[in-house]
């Protein structure tokens, strides 16, 4: 595998995002709206007096969760789904490059774009308005490392469910299922420390906390054992990549290409 061959897919992924200025503006706009929404929802919950954790801590968690979610969201299900449904996946399969790596490197480009137009603005808003502190250098670097693992986890998970498209022929329903589960279990909606202990333990048996809660715990310094956090992320990455690969091998023999 020569890297330059695959990096051209990253360039295309990034380039596609940059083609539309409206896309970037809409990305920033929706980030602002969702942050305002989250702010008032949590403020209302805090006003009920039920929370054991200070509002300022929670809102910083929620803001960071938006940053991570925005910067690492992948939608490979729809990408593969559209190609399988219309039969244009033949164009990926006729190239002397593995489908998996074409998707991976393309998605990295898409993610880089999302990080710029949806991740960075969310972070800036978080720092200015939502009590997100600027971390020290070492914490910052550890957070970025963990965020990169999250990015890979998001791609690996989306790729794995995308492989099911070869059976279902439709991508969006798979994506809905994945994002719903991930939204709840990862910490993207509710800070995981607010979840009752015994339920939370079940969440930690899934890969989802590694995708939002883990990098935040590093950022906020609440992780008890940083090495364990990284270890868990890496183990899940290996599991998801393996599962995706096994599904692809099964899918490969099942491929039927639609249309003439």
């Amino acid at each position: 595998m020569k890297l330059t061959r695959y990096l051209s897919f990253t360039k295309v992924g990034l380039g596609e995002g940059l083609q539309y200025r409206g896309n970037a503006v809409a990305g920033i706009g929706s980030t602002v709206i969702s942050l305002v929404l989250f702010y008032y929802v949590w403020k209302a919950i805090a006003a009920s007096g039920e929370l054991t954790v200070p509002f300022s801590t929670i809102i910083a968690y929620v803001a960071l969760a938006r940053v991570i979610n925005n910067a690492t969201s992948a939608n490979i299900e729809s990408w593969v789904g559209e190609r399988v449904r219309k039969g244009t996946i033949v164009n990926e399969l006729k190239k002397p490059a593995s489908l998996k790596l074409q998707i991976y490197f393309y998605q990295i480009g898409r993610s880089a774009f999302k990080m710029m137009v949806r991740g960075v603005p969310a972070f800036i808003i978080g720092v200015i308005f939502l009590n997100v502190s600027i971390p020290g250098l070492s914490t910052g670097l550890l957070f970025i490392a963990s965020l990169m693992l999250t990015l890979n986890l998001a791609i690996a998970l989306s790729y794995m469910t995308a492989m099911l498209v070869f059976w279902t022929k439709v991508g969006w329903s798979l994506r809905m299922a994945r994002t719903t589960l991930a939204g709840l279990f990862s910490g993207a909606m509710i800070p995981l420390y607010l979840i009752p202990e015994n339920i939370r333990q079940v969440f930690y048996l899934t890969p989802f906390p590694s995708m939002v809660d883990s990098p935040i715990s590093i950022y906020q310094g609440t992780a008890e054992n940083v090495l364990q956090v990284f270890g868990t992320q890496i183990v899940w990455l290996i599991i998801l990549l393996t599962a995706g690969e096994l599904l692809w091998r099964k899918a490969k023999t099942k491929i039927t290409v639609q249309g003439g």
Partner: protein
Amino acid sequence: MSLIKAKNLDKTFRIYQRGEGLRGYLKSFISRDFEEVNAVGDLNLEIDEGEMIGYIGANGAGKSTTVKMLTGILEPSSGKIEVDGLDPHKHRKKNAMNIGVVFGQKTQLWWDLPVRESFKLLKEVYEVSEEDYEARIDEFDEVLQLSDFWDQPVRKLSLGQKMRCELAAAFLHHPKIVYLDEPTIGLDVAVKERIRNFIKKMNEEEEITVMLTTHDIGDIEDLCDRVVVLDEGRKIYDGELDTLVNRFTSRRLVMELRDGEEFDLEMEGIKEVKREEGSVEVVFDRDEVSASDLMRKILDSYDVLDFRIREPDIESVVKKVYNEGL
């Protein structure tokens, strides 16, 4: 030595049945019946290096399925394929380096990006060197005139412009074989002409083997000496285009007789006489009577003002093959 060899190739798909109406949909949603459809059956094919073959058949005859198997995208249900010594499905990536493919109805260009970006990607993916790439694009530009729209996003191109790009993309990396699946579909005459010239040039100058599926008889007449006809997944003809034509059409002699003269000749070899206002069309079988013998006989007995032999038209041949089989 054949470059492409397919032996007893077979591809069976499962087609799931859907019931009729909402009730039927619900029923098939819960339990699905399927039918096995044999898209390609017992196909044997050998193509030599430098050949240009036309692969024709009605819609759904199995042409595209064959191309997808030869390119390694689909795995055959049974049978064996060897393309330049490789099993294209097992060694998909390696095989892909040797081939170029155009799927006429499925553009490989990146919709939102300028044309050149799609080519830059292909340059990297096929490992084409910088100098070679430049030279190649210049060369293609002469025939296909890509520079007219090189910097425009693909979504703004016309169908003909997109197809010119697709063609250039398929030949960019000096492939040994190019498969063209309906490359001229929906194009106007001028663009078709340009594309055919380009394919011809590539085949002549670089001995690139071309397999062409099409519904356009002009493509075949212009480009291919050899045709393979597929019907319901089976090969029903493989040979020279001329032979196919001769086998399927009778020649026609059309003439104009002096006013009031009645044509009533009966002769062996004449299969049909059609009388129209002012002209008479005689359909004859070339195996039984030659055109010159027939002509001599007619000129002896009638006062002919004008005549012409109507050349067989390949379209009607193909129609006949599709409708009746061989």
